[in-house]
């Protein structure tokens, strides 16, 4: 009996000794990593474990619009030895940086490489989906977003799926998924709840549900005090409500945080509405100055500048040149819209029609697209189609743009005979 007890104690102690020895061995190996971690469930993560600082830096760049964060992040990536799982993560992060630097084909290529190395890392599918979207490859973008969602249903995945749903005309589905994205919370550096709240607000704005949009922008400001995106959108709402003083104040707050061309242009438009032309001109001068600075730094001019020129009837040839160059890099519906508008302003209506049809191919419920389609159809002498487009734009959001909404309403009034009989 005594021997038996002694035996069982010995067995247990041997077990302990074995576990201890194994632990020591594994820990020693860990301190000199030799384990390849290319595949398998251990890689099923959205955040590369070894380089969270890089991710945080890229995220800061995304939030601030300050390109120096991307440059720094890229430099840090160069210093990380690409062994083991790090190789896939580095490729994924380089793809993410390329995305923010508007190098979409490079982003797609790098993300694809990262995905091949780490087929179970959700993050890579997110970047792949974004890059495909910007390149106008919506089917691939959908597939990648779906895989990301299957791997990890978090804010980053829901927000991509929500945006794709909206682009494909499913606003109800988009609202549902943006809600899920907000509820999921920001658990990874590539996601942001305030960002999602603004995006959901934008869906409501595009549907003309201004009160809901307003509430969401306020929520975003609560989540992220001083959010320039939320402030600029609140300004837009106050402007359509003719509360110009608050609108001006909010635009100025947004610009004080980030003098982004789109905010400067919107404030300029507001000043134009108020007849304060010199102040409007000051804002527009800043837009042009920013473009000049970008050109000095070797950045290609972007579609926003082309759209600015086209909207304000300035440098129209240049607007078209920029839009045509941009469509070579970026084939999404918004770039086609800008191209269409640049053609229209240059009097090339037939090419404008082709471009706007490309922009409308997904049935995206953006009033701006339908307004442009209506103007192009009018120029081509097709009032029935024009009427349909103007009606769609205004039925989506009768206040979609301070100036354009008025034009659309005037156009509808010019063709009253189409109101009853025309297609809706």
């Amino acid at each position, binding site marked *: 009996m005594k021997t038996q007890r002694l035996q069982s104690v010995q067995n247990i102690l041997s077990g302990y000794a074995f576990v201890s020895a194994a632990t020591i061995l594994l820990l020693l190996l860990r301190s*000199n990593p030799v384990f390849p971690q290319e595949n398998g469930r251990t890689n099923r993560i959205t955040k590369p474990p070894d380089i969270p600082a890089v991710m945080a830096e890229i995220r800061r760049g995304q939030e601030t619009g300050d390109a120096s964060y991307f440059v720094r992040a890229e430099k840090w990536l160069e210093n990380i030895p690409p062994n083991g799982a790090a190789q896939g993560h580095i490729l994924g992060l380089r793809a993410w940086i390329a995305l923010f630097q508007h190098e979409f084909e490079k982003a797609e290529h790098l993300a694809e490489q990262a995905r091949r190395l780490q087929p179970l890392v959700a993050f890579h599918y997110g970047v792949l989906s974004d890059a495909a979207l910007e390149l106008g490859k919506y089917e691939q973008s959908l597939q990648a977003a779906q895989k990301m969602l299957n791997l990890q249903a978090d804010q980053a995945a829901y927000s991509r799926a929500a945006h794709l749903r909206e682009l494909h005309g499913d606003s109800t589905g988009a609202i549902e998924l943006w809600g899920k994205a907000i509820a999921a919370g920001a658990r990874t550096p590539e996601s942001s709840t305030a960002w999602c709240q603004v995006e959901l607000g934008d869906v409501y704005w595009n549907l003309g549900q201004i009160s809901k949009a307003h509430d969401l922008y306020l929520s975003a400001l609560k989540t992220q005090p001083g959010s320039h995106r939320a402030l600029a959108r609140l300004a837009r709402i106050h402007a359509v409500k003719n509360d110009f003083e608050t609108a001006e104040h909010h635009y100025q707050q947004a610009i004080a945080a980030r003098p982004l061309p789109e905010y400067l242009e919107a404030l300029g438009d507001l000043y134009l509405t108020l007849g304060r032309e010199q102040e409007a001109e000051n804002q527009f001068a800043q837009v042009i100055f920013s473009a000049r600075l970008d050109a000095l730094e070797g950045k290609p001019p972007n579609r926003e500048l082309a759209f600015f020129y086209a909207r304000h009837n300035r440098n129209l040839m240049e607007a078209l040149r920029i839009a045509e160059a941009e469509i070579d890099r970026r084939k999404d519906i918004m770039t086609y819209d800008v191209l269409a508008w640049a053609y229209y302003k240059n009097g090339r209506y037939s090419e404008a029609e082709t471009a706007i049809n490309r922009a409308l191919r997904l049935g995206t419920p953006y009033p701006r697209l339908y307004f442009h389609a209506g103007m192009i159809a009018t120029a081509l002498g097709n009032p029935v189609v024009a009427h349909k487009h103007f009606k769609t734009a205004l039925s989506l959001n009768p206040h979609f743009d301070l100036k354009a909404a008025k034009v659309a309403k005037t156009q509808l009034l010019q063709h009253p005979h189409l109101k009853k009989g025309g297609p809706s």
Partner: protein
Amino acid sequence: MKQHPILAALLMLVFSAMGVFAHPMGNFSINHFSALTVEPQGIQVRYILDFAEIPTFQERQGMDQNQDGTISTTEQTRYLEEKVSTLSNRLFLIIDGKRQPLTPLSHTLEFPKGAGGLPTMRLDIVYQTPPVSLHGRAEPQSWMLEYEDKNYPHRVGWKELAAKGVSGIGLEGSIVPETGSALLDYSEAENNTPPQILKTSFSFHRSAGIPPTISAAPRPMALPGLSQEDAFTRLMGEHRPSGLNLFWILIVSAALGAGHALSPGHGKTLVAAYLVGSQGTFRHALLLGITVTFSHTIGVFLLGLITLYLSDLILPETLYPWLSRLSGLGILTIGLILFRQRWAGLKSHTKTSHHHHPKTKPHDAAHPLKHILGLGISGGIIPCPSALVVLLSAVAFHQVGFGMLLITAFSFGLAATLVAVGLSVVYLGNRFKGFGPFGPLFRFLPPVSAASVSILGGLIALGGGG
């Protein structure tokens, strides 16, 4: 002289790159620097703002009041006067709860060339508060200073603060350095995220012996139950093994282990509660103490492995409560089995006591080893966060051997305390067995102690216990 075409191209590339080099903090940035100098004459604030190209363009638009595209000296002077005043409105310097007015002493405005020769703007202002009366004040002669720069909130950029005391003024509790970059050198941002410090607070006093500035040292990773001031954790971070030092570190580690065993959650109550009713021997006490310690160490190893290899799938912090619950349920089960056996033993003893069976043993005496091992493993499996941090730090420092040694020494200390508790209980139990007027009450001790084990198990499962 004929120039080499490739060299010429390279030179052109270099010069054009130099000419268009963007602001290191980005074209949108407005960069802040405040240097506070606390002196008997008052607090001096050197406030520098470095505007990148875009904000400079905006400021110059504001300066050019007649909108003629050029900035005259009059326009610049008027702008400066207004700017110096509006900036001070959003600089908050508070001493002992009272905001101090900031009077400008001097200012300079420059337009260094930035990207493509476009101007940037550098504004350098020195403000001064009124003198702080450092005499004729009741003890303690210490003042609280709070400072916050609220200019250009949410704008990207480098945001830096420095503070120092001069002429016999000492600062206490300041976490900012005494000097800074003055926005002349951004090279640190190549390897680090730019500083974002816009406010600070510290106390200052008139003293010969100036206390050292306290720096914000990085803290060890936070795990549930781990105090940030944990002495054992610091052993890994602050000491490296070398000669005699190693011996003392191990002694300290063992002593910390011995002390740590007295903190909640280390099975000492369990050891006592079991042994008090089991008529345990010294051998049992020794075995129970050692088993708890062994399983404790193994628990650390296993959790360490999970943290290092499986943290993508299982988060250690989510594992803690489950391990505690599992451990608690194990103890509860063994406690209930013991209680049933001991209660049956008590009843059988009561029935047979008038037949004068002098030495009836509790039923669990038949399986003491099984129960001791079961209890020891269940009680010890809740890993100690301090030991885990040491293990992970050891991996991070590439000092695995040293880390294991520390944990082993720590475990020895832990074992020593638990065994000492067990031996004391056994000794006291033998000493007072059947003793005095309460002698008959000792009959109830086995089931009562088994019930205590069950309660302890329940408490651990619910998140308490010790």
